[in-house]
């Protein structure tokens, strides 16, 4: 069976085509989903792609979260549907309260686009199974509202339950893509829900799937192969 992976397009979504391409390159069948439809077309997993849905007006993800497609996604995510939120998708997941915390303006106030080193902190989620625990990967980062915050209790809970999925790797030079790029608390780049089916992160694995394009690395492909494996063995 070929896994069917849906990618949602909201008004202002930008990385939907790239996410569909990444899904295809990973070997699954890409399926376009539209924000006005509650119907998920029987997909086995969903990607909320990056971009500026509704222009990021009000707060990033705040308006999209109330769209018809999100009603179904919120329900099904609670029932175990694998959902990956990338950048704006992550922001939508926090605004929907599928993931805790919130995303704020970068501490330096600028949009930042660069190749970013990440450490995989949880290789057991639906989207990270093909990585090694502690592995360092490099994928593009591009956002202006990427600073992850939550109160200390939530942060402690995330750490205690191993729900920090990715951290910004800080052990090397900035010129090599190391460092916390936006002031995210505890260097958090991505998190997962307790069940491991819902994952959100700010950097863009879908931009790191072809050797020639972007940064020239393919470190992001394993997100998509991970979920395919999970779906096939499930």
């Amino acid at each position, binding site marked *: 069976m070929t896994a069917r992976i849906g990618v949602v397009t909201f*008004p*202002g979504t*930008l*990385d939907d*085509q*790239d996410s569909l*391409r*990444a899904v295809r390159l990973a070997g699954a069948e890409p399926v376009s989903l539209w924000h006005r439809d509650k119907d998920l077309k029987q997909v086995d997993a969903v990607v909320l792609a990056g*971009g*500026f849905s*509704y*222009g*990021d*007006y009000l707060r990033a993800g705040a308006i999209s979260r109330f769209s018809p497609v999100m009603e179904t996604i919120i329900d099904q995510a609670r029932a175990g549907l694998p959902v990956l939120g990338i950048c704006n998708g992550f922001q939508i997941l926090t605004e929907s309260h599928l993931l805790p915390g919130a995303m704020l303006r970068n501490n330096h106030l*600028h*949009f*930042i*686009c*660069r190749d970013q080193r990440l450490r995989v902190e949880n290789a057991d989620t639906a989207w990270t199974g093909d990585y090694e625990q502690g592995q360092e990967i490099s994928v*593009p980062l*591009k956002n*202006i509202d990427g600073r992850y915050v939550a109160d200390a209790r939530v942060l402690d809970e995330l750490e205690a339950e191993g729900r920090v999925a990715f951290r910004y790797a800080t052990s090397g030079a900035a*010129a090599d893509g190391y460092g916390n790029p936006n002031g995210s608390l505890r260097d958090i780049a991505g998190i997962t829900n307790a069940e491991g089916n819902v994952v959100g992160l700010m950097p*863009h694995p*879908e*931009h790191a*799937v*072809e050797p*020639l*394009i*972007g*940064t020239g690395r393919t470190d992001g492909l394993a997100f998509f192969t991970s979920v395919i494996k999970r779906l096939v063995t499930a």
Partner: protein
Amino acid sequence: MTLDTVKHATGTPETEQPWAELGLKQDEYARIREILGRRPTGAELAMYSVMWSEHCSYKSSKVHLKQFGEKAPESDALLVGIGENAGVVDVGQGYAVTFKVESHNHPSYIEPYQGAATGVGGIVRDILAMGARPIAVVDPLRFGAADHPDTKRVLPGVVAGIGGYGNCLGLPNIGGEVVFDPCYQGNPLVNAGCIGVMKHEDIHLAQASGLGNKVILYGARTGGDGIGGVSVLASETFDSTGPAKRPAVQVGDPFQEKLLIECTLEIFAEKLVAGIQDLGGAGLSCATSELASAGSGGMRVELDTVPLRDATLSPEEILMSESQERMCAIVEPDKVERFLEICEKWDVIATVIGEVTEGERLEIFWHGEQIVDVPPRTVAHEGPVYERPYARPEWQDALQADDAGKLPRPGSGPELREQVLRLVASPNQASKAWITDQYDRFVQGNTVLAQPEDAGMVRIDDVTNLGVAMATDGNGRYAKLDPYTGTQLALAESYRNVAASGATPLAISNCLNFGSPEDPGVMWQFAEATRGLADGCLALGTPVTGGNVSLYNQTGETAIHPTPVVAVLGVIDDVNRRTPIAFAEEGQLLYLLGDTAEEFGGSAWSQVIHDHLGGLPPAVDLAREKLLGEILIAASRDGMIDAAHDLSDGGLVQAVVESCLRGRTGARLIVPDGLDAFTFLFSESAGRAVVSVPRSEELRFNDMCGARGLPVARIGVVDGDEIEVQGQFSIPLSELRTAHEGTIPALLV
């Protein structure tokens, strides 16, 4: 106030009209009366005044721009030439590419963020209107002195605006320029370019034909923004005497523009439009008159059906409004319903505001009463044309006589070392990453090369790997010393950059930024620049597909340096063959291609070390440029080189430092026979590049260059973690990186 209808105007020929406040000259006003056979109505006067402004009519530049057509080289690639929203070139495999650069200089000084943002928005709509999907943007920028306090206001705002708009549209920013010079202090240059791609059969033109076809305005509601912004001069006076205070600055809504793009592309895909035009400068005045002028038949518009954001707008203001994110389409009646459905799907407001009529007139009505009745060609295409007087400025001789060759040169290794570090750390030569990292270069997943590469490159077909490349260049210092040569140097550099990336240059666009055309000295610069560009394009075989002219760039009496910016578009069959600038493989050999002479006039060295501008710019040899390009492209195609970097401002040492930092490797350089170390490192002779050659390819590469007659010199090897110039000095990469990357953040944070 009574509505100034056509009937009313006919009956009140003596009424005083504010033509001067609107920027019209007495004889221009007289000509309007002559065309109409009566005085214009207020609405007609508004239309003529904006459309006959310098910005829209090119009245001062037209006579010079003609050369681009007259001297155009033979080219099979050109599908649509000068005169449309943007030119279109054939890039093979059934694909066509359209590209253009425009200026948004004056608004960006007043409101840097919104001025720059709406500049991006405008050029993107131009590209979209040709039927193309916009795929990338570029942004050639000029600011005042890097350490001037106002630069701290203007630059961050401009950069945030370009990023804020382009990033939100999902267009990768793949190139541009950032140049600092005190001459741009009160008049920064914000040029923005866009590339779009389509299939040949999808090319759309701005024309209204087909009796009974509907005119549909879609996108944002119309508000009071940017009224008269077409000509800041006119708007200032208009604002102080006009009926209401209306802002001259527009606010952009990139989210609305993103919807407009997707909606329009879906409309194109279903073949629902017969003609289309974006709304930019001069808003509806421009769109309706240009559409009607270019098509067959006339046009009737019910202006009161235009959806408004501000109900108090007068008909004149609606016609002049430059509200952003709007398009105007001509649609056959039986396709209107589907058109409106697609707009609804994308939450885009769309309204039928008129139709194509019999006859030759553009007629506009306001609640049933006629307020405009004009021959549209006289508004859109038959505006005034000036043969402005021009004369070589008196100071030109003295400037050229002040030879940079006489400046004191560094006499020792340590002195050279110190000057190299100062050069690579100077604001114009320093890394621009602080700026370019605020732009998304990855979005759309097709970016092969972006900053700091020589050219931006994007894949346009992910099955065949067909790609296009683009570079923009301009050097105001060279152009000030000699506008003819300086413009050809801009063309040559842009051409060289594209060739260095492995792509074949096909065609060019330009943005000509100059001072006041009423100054004969400036007009001479303009005449020389256009002559240089036209001659240069003929020599290189790259036709001009379009462009933009921005005049009145000056502070008080002082004009900016003449700043022609040239954008060259190239094509590459397989992006896998692209050539990056990075020296990444230890042991590879470095070759300098081309001839190096003692040329320092207008150079970065003369500016950074001596704060000097004088003498002559480097000589141009376009036949040599062409040969160099062919060698670079062939070497890339046949795998003979792994890296290439063109030499331009800062000379060889600047290029080697950039390539080493990018590749994280050092280099050992040997000064070739016949050159002194200083000239070797700092000369800015044109027609040169440095390449990194795998040892296995050395013979083949040398043979090729020898056979084609291109001078080459082996100048060193990629090695270690410092740059060493044998017998002179060495500098660790880490020290170079700190110098090169620290400057801009320190100035702006």
